[in-house]
């Protein structure tokens, strides 16, 4: 009797350990192969896109959904790998502090907030910033993505030195996790003895120019990066040299397999494709009733434009359809003085004619060839208070000053709000040159090159099991609320494209992820 019970007890214990087993378990390591690639120590190089930046900042869940982290998880399915580490921020609010004080320009993340009428707009999340760059993390970190870094800055020693913050010689995102004040991003990457790497470097060499509305300088032909400003375009030769040095260093450090990711056209992203060139609707109660008066006023100006032989600069607003905004095109000949003269000749008083001359000397209406920045949407049609003050300083009465200071309607949109064709051309040429360099470096080192056109399929839309992922702002799902960085689903899409490249090149079978399982934008009414 006792014996029987004992046996049953033993049997029962045996059961506890029993687990269902698949014939081909995905976690056994047999189902997939790493092919000729060795993912055991993967290091990711890049900028904000690599860091998991989204919604205007870096926050925790953004980092967890960075494409390198997604890749590392999939690599771990096919091969025994080292833990993939990231310099995680303190919380999900985003933003940065230095010694407890918020760094200017490093606000919390954007969330999609709705007002009582159901109108949605990105707003800053009301959470508390807790990530302090003076709290320096101990690495090494597999994800070496540093938001804001340009190609040649990857090599810059002291780029993570907090003492360089004041002089703008340091990058606060790198300050957080640089192994020492004098190291460079590349040095910290190489020191990890990587076996595999990805590099998505170079966007900032052109993006900062584009994102500033082309206010910077195109330095093509200038080989000295020490003379470059923050919003300038890097010379393609300087770019290629820095990029080659980065890749050579990684390969020599042991990462003989890797992926170089091309740079999608920055002007294809929602940051530039969301605000239409003709956003002024006659149905807008703040604009429609003004149209007749505006057209009467502009007709004087248009006669002057015609007289001066530039009738193409004429400005008029439609009473039935949407009208283009008025912009300042700094590539146009400045005809301020002639304009003033002609207007005075037409009987306008000198004061008004002078102001008109100044204001419209390089003005024209936008065309489909111009790109308005996402950030302009909150400015268009608003009274520009700075301009009002300027005009009042000239002695213009406050009411008239206000009437002449409506952004895009009476006051031409300033440079930082719009990319004109010449600027777009600069961006396009630099991007093409950079991509040629990246492709050549990939070929020279026998690495995977991800053609940017593969990623730009998002502009057309990419179907997945829950619909279509596209680069349409807010609704498309691929881009976060800053219009330039991606959502987790967008980054998962990037990861899948990289996996396709890896599998094809290295005869590997790394499984792709289901992008439908990744989140898109975050709605919240907890806003500042």
């Amino acid at each position, binding site marked *: *009797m006792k014996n*029987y019970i004992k046996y*049953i007890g033993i*049997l*029962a214990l045996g*059961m*506890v350990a*029993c*687990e*269902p*087993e*698949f*014939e*081909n*378990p*995905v*976690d056994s390591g047999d*189902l*997939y192969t790493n092919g000729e690639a060795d993912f055991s120590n993967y290091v990711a190089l890049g900028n904000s896109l690599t860091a998991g930046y989204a919604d205007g900042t870096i926050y*925790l*869940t953004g980092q*967890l959904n960075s494409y390198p982290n997604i890749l590392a998880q*999939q690599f771990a*399915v*096919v091969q025994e790998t080292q833990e993939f580490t990231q310099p995680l921020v303190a*919380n*999900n609010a985003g933003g940065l502090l230095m010694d407890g004080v918020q760094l200017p320009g490093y606000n919390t993340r954007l*969330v*999609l*907030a*709705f007002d009582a009428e*159901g109108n949605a707009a990105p707003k800053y*999340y009301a*959470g508390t910033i807790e990530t302090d760059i003076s709290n320096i993390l101990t690495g090494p970190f597999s994800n070496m993505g540093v938001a804001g870094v340009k190609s040649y800055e990857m090599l810059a020693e002291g780029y993570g030195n907090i003492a360089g913050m004041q002089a703008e010689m340091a990058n606060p995102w790198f300050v957080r996790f640089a192994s020492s004040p004098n190291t460079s991003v590349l040095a910290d990457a190489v020191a990890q003895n990587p076996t595999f790497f990805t590099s998505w470097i170079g966007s900032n060499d052109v993006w900062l120019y584009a994102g500033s509305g082309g206010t910077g300088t195109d330095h093509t032909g200038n080989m000295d990066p020490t003379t470059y400003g923050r919003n300038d375009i890097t010379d393609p030769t300087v770019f290629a040299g820095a990029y080659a040095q980065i890749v050579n260093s990684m390969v020599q450090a042991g990462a003989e397999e890797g992926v170089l990711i091309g740079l999608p056209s920055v002007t294809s992203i929602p940051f530039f494709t969301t605000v239409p060139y003709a956003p002024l609707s006659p149905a807008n109660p703040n604009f429609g009733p003004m149209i007749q008066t505006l057209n009467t006023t502009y007709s004087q100006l248009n006669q002057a434009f015609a007289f001066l032989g530039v009738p193409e600069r004429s400005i008029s607003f439609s009473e039935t359809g949407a009208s283009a905004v008025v912009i300042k095109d700094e590539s146009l000949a400045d005809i301020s003085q002639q304009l003033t003269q002609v207007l005075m000749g037409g009987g306008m008083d000198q004061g008004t004619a002078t102001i008109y001359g100044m204001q419209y000397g390089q003005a024209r209406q936008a065309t489909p060839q111009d790109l308005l920045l996402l950030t302009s949407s909150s400015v268009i049609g608003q009274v520009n208070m700075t301009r009002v003050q300027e005009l009042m300083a000239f002695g213009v009465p406050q009411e008239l000053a206000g009437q002449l200071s409506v952004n895009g309607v009476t006051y031409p949109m300033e440079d930082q709000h719009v990319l004109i064709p010449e600027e777009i051309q600069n961006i396009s040429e630099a991007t093409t040159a950079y991509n040629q360099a990246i492709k050549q470096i990939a070929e020279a080192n026998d690495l995977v090159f991800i053609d940017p056109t593969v990623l730009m399929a998002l502009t057309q839309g990419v179907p997945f*099991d*829950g*619909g279509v992922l596209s680069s349409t702002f807010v609704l498309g799902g691929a881009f976060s609320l800053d219009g330039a960085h991606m959502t987790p*689903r967008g980054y998962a899409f990037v990861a899948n494209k990289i996996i396709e490249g890896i599998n094809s090149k290295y005869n590997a079978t790394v*499984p*792709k*992820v*289901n992008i*439908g*399982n*990744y*989140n*898109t934008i*975050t*709605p*919240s*009414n*907890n806003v500042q």
Partner: protein
Amino acid sequence: MRKILFLAVFALASAVTYAGGYRVGVQGQRALAMGHTGVAVVNSAELGFFNPSGLVYLENQLTISAGVSAVFAEVAWQNETTGAVARTDNPVGTPFYFNASYKINDWVAVGLSVTTPYGSTVEWEDDWEGSHLVNNIALQAIYIQPLVSVKVAEWFSVGGGPIYVTGAVNFNRNLSRTLTDIDGNRANVTVDASGVNEWGWSASAMFTATDDLRIGVNYRSEIIMNAEGGEADFENVPNTPVNGLDQLTDTTFDAQLPLPAELTVGLSYQFNEKWLLAFDFNRTFWSVYESLDITFGNGRVSSNPRAYEDSNTWRFGAQYTATDKLTLRAGYYLDESPVQPGYFAPETPRNDSMGFTAGLSLEVTSRLAIDASFAYIRFDEVDASYDQYVDENGQNVPFGGTYKSVAFIPGLGVTYKL
């Protein structure tokens, strides 16, 4: 010994049981050891569940059969396309039974049967790939049934009685594949209802063809469990009016879950003094389970099509009387799944299965026997999907992968005769 066992049974009474689908065939150690046959086997008070009409044939005035099993059941899921994998971490299920029969005279017996024929506990890892369908679910239903068995003729008896069911459900799933609060915590809902009570009935007959051959039939009615005014607890819902999410606050819910009717016919044949063979055929009328619809207090309805179909189970058992004191049993069954292609939901991840069973009874005294059984349930690895999920954008999103289940059920019981 008896005391300890009884204590164990009632201590575990509130614990829940395993099933794929949610029928758990563990209502008697003697029957289970023989492939869970018993509609035509006159052996013990287990008849209270299998065929109450047979109680009148029990030799003793009072017969009690009681026992409990430990169900170790786990399910694994994987998706070869993505390399994702998930495993359940189910608690040990403890289905139990208590059957008593009291013979008033040669023609009439009365009895009481307490069993747990339906129940399910499936606990996936929270936020696993299928978490928009289920994170975890616990169903339990306790059947309490007073019985009467009447011998109409020497060769024919009928029996049955009303069934009182008391049940509970607790079900948690994420609201969608991706919705989270600002900190990335997945938005989810738990529905919880207990003390859900309903009535049903069973009726049965037994035909004794010859001294050696018995034929039995048993029918247990369908019982629809109506959970009304249960608690629905929403967690981690972001503060936004998008899709009306700001209205998802804790509320009540109503839902129905059917416990389907079951018809069993079978026979037993006393081959010789040593050998008894038994065969049962069950038909479970699962087609009543069309959809799991949850209506929340805020008017929202969560509709989860199930489209089960009636399913069959074929059971075979043998009993060998080794000595006066020791009886050995073995059995086999083939259990068809009621789940149809495209409706394979991970909260009831059941495909066709085979049960291999064995057990024994040992007479400790002339009045008391120990009954032990062991069942191994084998499921084929199956590629299956649930294609009925509709996401927050109205998009139909299938969830599929490869499933593999396994279950071991050791059990212990007693039979007491007076």
